[in-house]
């Protein structure tokens, strides 16, 4: 700490502080300073996150419509919640969402863990290849949605061409984004392409956190590689895998951009995830009260599931 020279001790900037002022600045207690440091962030979050949330809760009990802001607002109580929870279309959207979350998380976890396991073998150049693999998750969903739309074009797209080349079908015989059975998988493929690296990175951290001596002890005990994998690698990496699943699960439950860009919810409503239903109700039909209630239901669902899951995660961690 030599750079804190004696001459600069009681100066603040270039101006030497008056003794009284110095005492007052120093007199700003740690407690006051702590609040001074933390308050701006809290205020911002209250203004731009919590206040809107509270407003959404209020709106969800009314028949307010944002495109008719002068119309008298009627208090409806829990009507919207009843409407939504008994609407088969909403349940269909929730099912589509659940399918997406399930399949993307399963595929990303299996592939991501597999890749991490391989990279952990420290072959030559693993650092460079890891960085390359990580690229997709750094991109904008808008950009990703765009170029995959291009790749999926039946007449000109590279994806169709490659599938056609490998399977011998004709490239224009199937439409990834226009076919009711294929379009959900078209989105799953893009999501897996983009986010497998994310799971891989977290799993890699998990694998690297396992100390070598445990394996050395297992070697001494002549445990087979297979046994080592099931009894050491997997259980010790499990908290990390679960963390990755948590983050991906929350993100994919909220999934909007990719679907909006690739299919917009179609064909029909085969890829209409909850966020798309919500966007349509809120910004196309302008049913603000209704969509607010749906937004609250979604938020409570994510929040509730995440909390349950975090409890499970903590149990695994503390084992």
């Amino acid at each position, binding site marked *: 700490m030599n750079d804190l020279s004696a001459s600069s001790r009681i100066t603040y900037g270039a101006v030497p502080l008056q003794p009284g002022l110095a005492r007052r600045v*120093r007199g700003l207690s740690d407690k006051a300073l702590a609040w001074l440091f933390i308050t701006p962030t809290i205020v*911002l979050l209250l203004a731009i996150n919590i206040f809107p949330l509270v407003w959404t809760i209020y709106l969800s009990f009314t028949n307010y419509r944002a495109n008719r802001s002068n119309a008298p607002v009627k208090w409806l109580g829990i009507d919207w919640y009843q409407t939504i929870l008994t609407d088969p279309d909403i349940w269909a959207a929730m099912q589509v969402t659940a399918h997406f979350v399930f399949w993307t998380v399963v595929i990303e976890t299996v592939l991501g863990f597999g890749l991490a396991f391989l990279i952990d073998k420290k072959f*030559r150049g693993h650092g460079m*290849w890891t960085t390359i693999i990580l*690229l997709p998750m750094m*991109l904008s969903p808008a950009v990703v949605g765009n170029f995959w739309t291009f790749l999926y074009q039946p*007449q000109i797209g590279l994806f169709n061409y490659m599938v056609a080349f490998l399977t011998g079908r004709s490239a224009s015989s199937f439409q990834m984004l226009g076919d009711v059975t294929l379009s959900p998988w078209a989105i799953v493929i893009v999501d897996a392409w983009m986010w497998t690296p994310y799971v891989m990175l977290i799993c890699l951290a998990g694998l690297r956190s396992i100390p070598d001596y445990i394996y050395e002890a297992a070697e001494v005990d002549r445990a087979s590689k297979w046994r080592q994998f099931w009894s050491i690698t997997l259980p010790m990496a499990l908290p990390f895998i679960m963390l990755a699943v948590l983050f991906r699960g929350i993100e994919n439950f909220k999934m*909007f951009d990719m679907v909006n860009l690739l299919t917009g919810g179609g064909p029909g409503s085969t890829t209409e995830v909850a966020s798309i239903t919500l966007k349509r109700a809120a910004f196309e039909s302008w049913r*603000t009260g209704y969509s607010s209630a749906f937004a609250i239901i979604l*938020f409570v669902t994510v929040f509730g599931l995440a909390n349950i899951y975090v409890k499970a995660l903590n149990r695994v961690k503390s084992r």
Partner: protein
Amino acid sequence: MSIANTAHSVVEPSLNTRRLAGSLVVLYAVITMIPLVWIVLTSFKSPDDAISYPPKIVFTPSLEGYCNLFTTRSRQTPEFIRTLGPPQGLCDDIARSRNMVVAGPSNYVPRFVNSLIIAFGSTVLAVALGTLSAYGFSRFRVPLKDDLLFFILSTRMMPPIAVAIPIYLMYRTIGLSDTRLGMILLYTSVNVSLAVWLLKGFIDEIPREYEEAAMIDGYTRFQAFVKVVLPQATTGIAATAIFCLIFAWNEYAFAVLLTSGNAQTAPPFIPIIIGEGGQDWPAVAAGTTLFLVPIVVFTVLLRKHLLRGITFGAVRK
């Protein structure tokens, strides 16, 4: 990465295992790269080459995609074009070969400028607020600290669409809708949670003794923060800034829902570039490629911090 550097031990995989693992990873990396490489190639194709079947790997490079991204063109008769003087630059030359002349810059330029202003503005704000709060949470006894930190994190669990409705109404009421300031504040609020969590991790690692020594030397707490902690936290602050920048740069959902023209950023704009006879794929690819470049650079720079950044600092390498 420390474990990777430990001395050769019995658990070091055999050369064959490593080779097999290496080839599988390289195979995955190559498959991953195909879409990216393809889009960069497409950005240098002529519109005809871009939609040819089978897809062309060998083609004559063209800058038409980039020109179409940055300019608007108007159709003219060949006779009229012949009366004009020499072409005004490369893009005009390309346009004339298609019986068009460059009419002016496209909307991409102001969108791109919006992206820059909003991304940098919100990053500076989020990092500034985040650094202060992170220091506060790291060094002081704050009542309900864990609850406040969890509250900050939980703001990220909201689906963007859910917050977009009231923010849209709120901004409309106070005159912030479709303004850059509104978007800066919104992105700051999204980024600040990441910034607080990440920076708290970085600041926790700076020994408290440094500031205590400075304070014994007569510094106030605030001076110690500015002159001792901030310089020590530079790397962490830089990494956090890049993460905030990438988020704001990439964001799509809020941008598409809350902006319409004035404050719209580039991501919602790229998908709607329509040329004559449908989607102008080389122009879309060009917009995409330009958007990829800074991200690729940042990814390489961020390698070491990537894990922290994407997990809110919950996992450290």
